[in-house]
């Protein structure tokens, strides 16, 4: 296993955020952590990347215990993260942001820079624009591209679809698959469970700081309990079927709306589907 977390407990003050999570990610996989708000998904990622200290348990990366390693050294070890809420440096240009991604590297990083621009042509168009003035989708692309600049062995993605229009969500997930195909292991945290499960090999379902289920993603997609809790249940099939029976994408869109993504998404959701149909 490339990355193993063993029975980790994490506290915010006295409140336990993680109550013994055990999970593993193998080389070449896309693994998802899904679950509701407050289930501990983001905390798990932050603990892996070293932003939150462990109360107990251990994290093993590449066979080495990194539980006590500070965050900035884990980057060098091969853990790259695109943080929640994107976390771009707003006062730096796109290119400066990407170069910050290679801050810890001493070798030549021009190849990764070219690759980031190739994966996200939009960023290449906006090299000199301040990151703070870009749209949410562009900032998300930048955050992922920046995380890739450190040439990570495992890429941690925290809610890459948050706050994005459905069409962009689709695009981001396609790119995540492409990144994985090029050899980077991905650990994905998502509220958008349907989309996440579709591109993942395996997934863990988190509830209030515990793993309640772990299985291959395809199995979870068919699991009635998971469907009811995170995928909008049977509802999504009924509403989606008459609209566009053959195309898989709209099914996903309906699920996005039904499973409780920010309500603000709705105004552009329907209009997009109309133009599709």
């Amino acid at each position, binding site marked *: 296993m490339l990355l193993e977390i063993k029975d980790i407990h994490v506290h915010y003050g006295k409140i336990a955020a993680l109550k013994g999570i055990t999970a593993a990610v193998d080389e070449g996989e896309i693994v998802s952590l899904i679950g509701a708000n407050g289930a501990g998904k983001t905390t798990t990622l932050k603990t892996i990347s070293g932003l939150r200290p462990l109360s107990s348990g251990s994290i093993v990366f590449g066979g080495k215990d990194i539980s006590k390693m500070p965050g900035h050294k884990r980057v060098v070890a091969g853990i790259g993260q695109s943080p929640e809420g994107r976390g771009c440096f707003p006062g730096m240009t796109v290119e400066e942001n990407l170069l910050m991604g290679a801050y810890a590297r001493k070798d030549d990083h021009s190849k990764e820079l070219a690759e980031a621009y190739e994966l996200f042509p939009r960023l290449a168009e906006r090299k000199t624009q301040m990151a703070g003035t870009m749209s949410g989708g562009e900032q*998300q692309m930048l955050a992922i591209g920046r995380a890739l600049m450190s040439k990570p062995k495992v890429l941690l993605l925290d809610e890459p679809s948050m706050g994005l229009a459905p069409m962009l969500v689709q695009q981001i997930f396609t790119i995540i698959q492409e990144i994985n195909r090029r050899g980077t292991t991905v650990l994905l945290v998502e509220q958008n469970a349907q989309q996440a499960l579709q591109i993942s090999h395996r997934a863990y379902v988190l509830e209030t700081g515990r793993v309640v289920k772990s299985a291959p993603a395809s199995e979870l997609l068919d699991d009635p309990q998971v469907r009811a809790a995170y995928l909008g249940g049977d509802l999504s099939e009924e509403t989606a079927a008459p609209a566009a029976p053959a195309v898989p994408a709209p099914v996903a869109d309906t699920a996005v709306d039904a499973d409780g993504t920010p309500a603000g998404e709705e105004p552009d959701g329907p209009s997009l589907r109309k133009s599709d149909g």
Partner: protein
Amino acid sequence: MNLSKTSKGIGGRGFSFDPLRDRWAAAPGSARWGVYALLIVGAILLPSEAVGSFMAGGGGDWATLLSDQITIYILLGLGLNIVVGMAGLLDLGYVAFYAVGGYTIGIFASKFGWHFWETLILAILFSALAGVLLGAPTLRLRGDYLAIVTLGFGEIVKKTVNNTQYVNGPRGIQGIPHPPTLSEFEILGVQPLKYGLLDSRPYYYLLLLFIIVAIIFTKRMERSRVGRAWASIREDEDAAELMGVPTFKFKLAAFALGAAIGGSGGVVFAAKQTSINPENFTFLVSALILAAVVLGGSGNIPGVILGAFVVAWLPERFRELSDYRMLIFGLALMTMMIFRPEGLWPSRQRKAELAEGTGGMGSMGAEVAGPDTAGPGTAGHTAEVGK
């Protein structure tokens, strides 16, 4: 949110320095050096009577005002700028380092007979050490929490010297020697290297030298790996750590370097005054230096110099208004912050950060939620709707 951004965030409200900045960026090296040379000549001629008759209102001595107030504030402003402007750490107890510098020369010069230059080096080391001592346990805190702890540190230093018999408690230390005279040579009626009681101008030139060194040093830092690390910490500390920046180490470095500059200011201050007491190091000094940095445009060296100048000079210039001047001064600061929150002369990067809502004081705390600073999720959403 997008609308408000273009109307006041990035575009800047009112007068903008952007055209000037672009011209500057495009100017050839020789032109830049010309401007630097002119600025230095201007600074050297600044204490002259012709300037002083207007600048020092109400019969004050312009050269004394320059050396006792303005240049000290500029030097302290440059030091605090490293902490607040570059690394984005809110420090409300900066006066503590100024005090460490002042008391270092006070003790070592008056009790052990060390001379000025020796104590200067020692004071720089001591204040940097004080910066590390304050930073090591507290820099895990962020934003407003850090501000409160530093505020406490400033008070601790003041209260400690106030209650220490060794440094005469509230009476302070007297009889601190002036710096030794380096040369008696005279030019245009000034002996710039003869440090005595009567003429303030040599101290002004000494501080001017310190300021120039501080500017060169800060500029070098800004463009280095250290500067980039500070910028990333200021803009988003968690993200900086995720980029492999050892954030704690760099925050500590910012504290130590800022403190060292503050300490050097304290040494010159004490040597000029020949006596110091705890009342020289009140919270008001910390507050005014911070006001100078923020008012001028934190992170931008010319802005900080301008801000420090305004903060030090305005209340003195309008001394004839007596008690009302502080009231007017306060109102002026408030008006400024309403209409130009990014400062008189902000850096471009800083303006973009402010527009994003963190104000560059780190990603947690020290940030005031307003209509413009919606959470990241909603921000992304609004941006997407535009397409």
